[in-house]
């Protein structure tokens, strides 16, 4: 195998990791929406901010998937991963040691509460980017992945993420209006 072929395989694997990360985030955000609409678990403000951080990670991944000569998307995703970690750790501490009268309400998935899942996801994303950079290094020039199926999958995932972001935006308007967000119900529907 010559150098060009090896570089192409590395480029494809790199893209595959990014697509998988984006798919995982899309699945997590979809699951959160299913829990909200199907199970009636209205998100608290910190939960909504964690969703914002996850969407920010998705934005970084989408930018990185479209770029061959820059790691800006990686940087954006890492910034939002750190934000997700900070918010979710704070909420996890509130879950473990609640202020009297403010116990955590919400169900668990596989025995783990959702803020803790957010911590796991944030750490996993940080590790994922670290491993990706360690294995594949930085940017590559001239790697032709433009016509591959990964590009189509990434494009469709990007559109899906935008769609669920729009749904979340409308849901926040219904829940909060222009005021504080409460978990007791949807403000505009009351």
């Amino acid at each position: 195998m010559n150098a060009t072929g090896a570089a192409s395989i590395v480029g494809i694997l790199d893209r595959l990791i990014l697509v998988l990360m984006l798919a995982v985030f899309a699945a997590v955000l979809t699951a959160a929406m299913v829990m909200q609409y199907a199970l009636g678990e209205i998100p608290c403000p910190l939960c909504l901010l964690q969703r914002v951080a996850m969407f920010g990670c998705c934005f970084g991944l989408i930018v990185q998937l479209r770029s061959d000569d820059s790691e800006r998307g990686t940087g954006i995703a890492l910034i939002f991963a750190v934000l997700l970690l900070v918010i979710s750790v704070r909420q996890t501490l509130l879950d473990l040691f609640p202020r009297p009268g403010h116990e955590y309400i919400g169900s668990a998935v596989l025995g783990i509460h959702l803020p803790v899942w957010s911590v796991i996801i944030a750490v996993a994303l940080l590790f994922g980017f670290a491993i990706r950079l360690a294995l594949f290094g930085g940017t590559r020039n001239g790697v032709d992945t433009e016509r591959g199926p990964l590009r189509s999958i990434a494009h469709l995932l990007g559109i899906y993420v935008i769609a669920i972001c729009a749904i979340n935006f409308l849901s926040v308007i219904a829940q909060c209006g222009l005021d504080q967000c409460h978990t007791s119900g949807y403000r505009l529907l009351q």
Partner: protein
Amino acid sequence: MMTAVFASLLLAFILDFAGLRRLAISCLFVSFVLCVGFFLWEVYSPDYGFRMPWLQL
């Protein structure tokens, strides 16, 4: 304020999809700043500040 956070976030996605990368990242930055500000406002307590004094080791 949460509406503003999601509005700027959605606008960032739409602008990026439309090919306006710099404008999209600017909107994303606005969303990030609003998110951080709202988080600090949400966890702040007039009695305890940002601390959690009931958390005893």
